């Protein structure tokens, strides 16, 4: 029997990203920051892959590289087994956005305050100019149902919605283009615990329903442990440790990982005596 293995939803091979922080008078680069240093990882289809790190670790940069908002200076990025186009043109961007979408952390800044909710959902379609307004509106209604946004809320503006509702809109917008891979950059970090729970439940359900692959970035160990199958720990642009989520988070090999996990105050584990 010959079974060809399914290609990974996402694969990075030695991806390096550098930012220029200073230039000389003549435009030549004088100082750079290495945001990602030879990062490699693989995410299988239908998997939820977690990324843990502190600020400056490069986790947001990694998210942006995957969706094409940043370009690596070296290394390979494969989406669904095919190399991602380094071309920054509109056609290349559209192709990539068909495959992967991103959900940002801040529910306030990720939605245009001048767009009504249904327009936000339908923006991907509006950009492609494929459907007329009425059809776009219908698609928006369909998506709204799937992410728990009521019909009345479709005509509202983002500032009339709560943080949790806005994050639902952001997730809905990402899903309209029917992506295979969803990059979630701290999607629940700005939300209350009970709202976070609702959103996490919804994310789990959506993953089941649509066989989505998640790249889930968070600094919250409890959330990562709950959602993800595997996890990688980032420190200063390098992957320090990666593997099965239960193993990495409970029996970390690396000292940085150990300190990171130990620093998280959790119910039931004592670090400090009051």
């Amino acid at each position, binding site marked *: 029997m010959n079974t060809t293995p399914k290609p990974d939803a996402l694969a990075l091979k030695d991806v390096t990203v550098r930012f220029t922080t200073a230039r000389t008078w003549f435009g030549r680069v004088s100082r750079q920051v290495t945001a990602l240093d030879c990062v490699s990882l693989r995410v299988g289809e239908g998997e939820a892959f977690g990324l843990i790190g502190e600020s400056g670790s490069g986790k947001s940069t990694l998210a942006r590289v995957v969706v094409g908002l940043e370009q690596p200076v070296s290394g390979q990025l494969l989406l669904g087994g095919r190399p991602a186009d380094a071309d920054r043109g509109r056609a290349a961007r559209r192709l990539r956005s068909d495959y992967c979408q991103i959900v940002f952390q801040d529910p306030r800044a990720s939605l245009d305050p001048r767009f009504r909710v249904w327009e936000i959902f339908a923006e991907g379609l509006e950009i492609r100019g494929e459907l007329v307004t009425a059809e776009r509106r219908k698609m928006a209604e369909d998506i709204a149902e799937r992410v728990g946004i009521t019909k009345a809320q479709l005509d509202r503006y983002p500032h009339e919605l709560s943080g949790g509702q806005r994050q639902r809109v952001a997730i809905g917008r990402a899903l309209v283009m029917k992506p295979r891979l969803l990059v979630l950059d701290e999607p629940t970090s700005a939300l209350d615990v009970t709202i976070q729970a609702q959103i996490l439940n919804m994310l789990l359900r959506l993953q089941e329903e649509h066989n989505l692959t998640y790249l889930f970035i968070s*600094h919250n160990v409890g959330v990562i442990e709950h*959602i993800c199958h595997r996890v990688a720990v980032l420190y200063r642009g390098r992957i320090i440790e990666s593997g099965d989520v239960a193993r990495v988070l409970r029996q970390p090999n690396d000292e940085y990982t150990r300190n990171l996990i130990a620093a998280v*105050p959790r*119910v039931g584990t004592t670090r400090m005596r009051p």
Partner: protein
Amino acid sequence: MNAVLSIRDLSVRFPSANAEVEAVRNVSIEVGRGEITGLVGESGSGKTLTAMCAMGLQPANAQVSAKRIEVAGHDVTALDRMQLRSIRGRDIALVPQEPMNSLNPTLRIGKQLEIVIRTHKAMTRAEARASALHSLAQMSIDDPDRVLRAYPFELSGGMRQRVLLAMAFSCRPGILIADEPTTALDVTVQQQVLNLLQAGARANDTSVLFITHDLGVVWNLCHRVYVMRRGEIVEHGAARTVIEAPQHPYTQRLLAALPDNSPPRTPLPVGMDELEPGPHRPA
């Protein structure tokens, strides 16, 4: 009364376009000497507003009524502006949420500390400087001289929060209100700041009212806890007891919603009918 902070039946109303919004309703809180007390709630619960009332820092259009708001023996509601200013810093101090925005970006740290110290104690500049150095050293800052000479933008978030803690402890207040002081910080930095807070509280005989939404921090740091929801206290008691055996359904829901408390990749037990907090705080 052994309580350093005593709030009895506090209610805060905001007049708004159609009706009055009651942001805080009959809240009573006591913080004893040497205690670290947590005030837990989600957004819109009124926890920050309650703490601000204790210092007389509530918004101008807030209508406050209380049987008693007592800080270190002073009745806050009966004080005029000058008197309020004199107890702030000296008897009750505040460490706010965002260390980036709480320091004056145009003054050096040393100058800002000096101002705080000399406002409440008659000291020469040299004495104040020495006191400032001592406060910074207490917060385990290795090179206090360099920090004194620095501007806020030269320091990291964690360092700034340490400076704010040093400022708060500098006059050895009876009670310190910490309003989500570590929310914006990295996890390892948060651990350091919380340790320093605990150590500083012990060293200066300062009680702490710790406002947070993070139950993990409450478990680790607080002796007692008050749980607030929509302007009311729903449960209170010893921190470990309340968390291990919550009595009120809201507290139970809060704990159940923590992903830590459920098996991986299973739906968390929170209903869809859980109404999200509405606009409790008009501008």
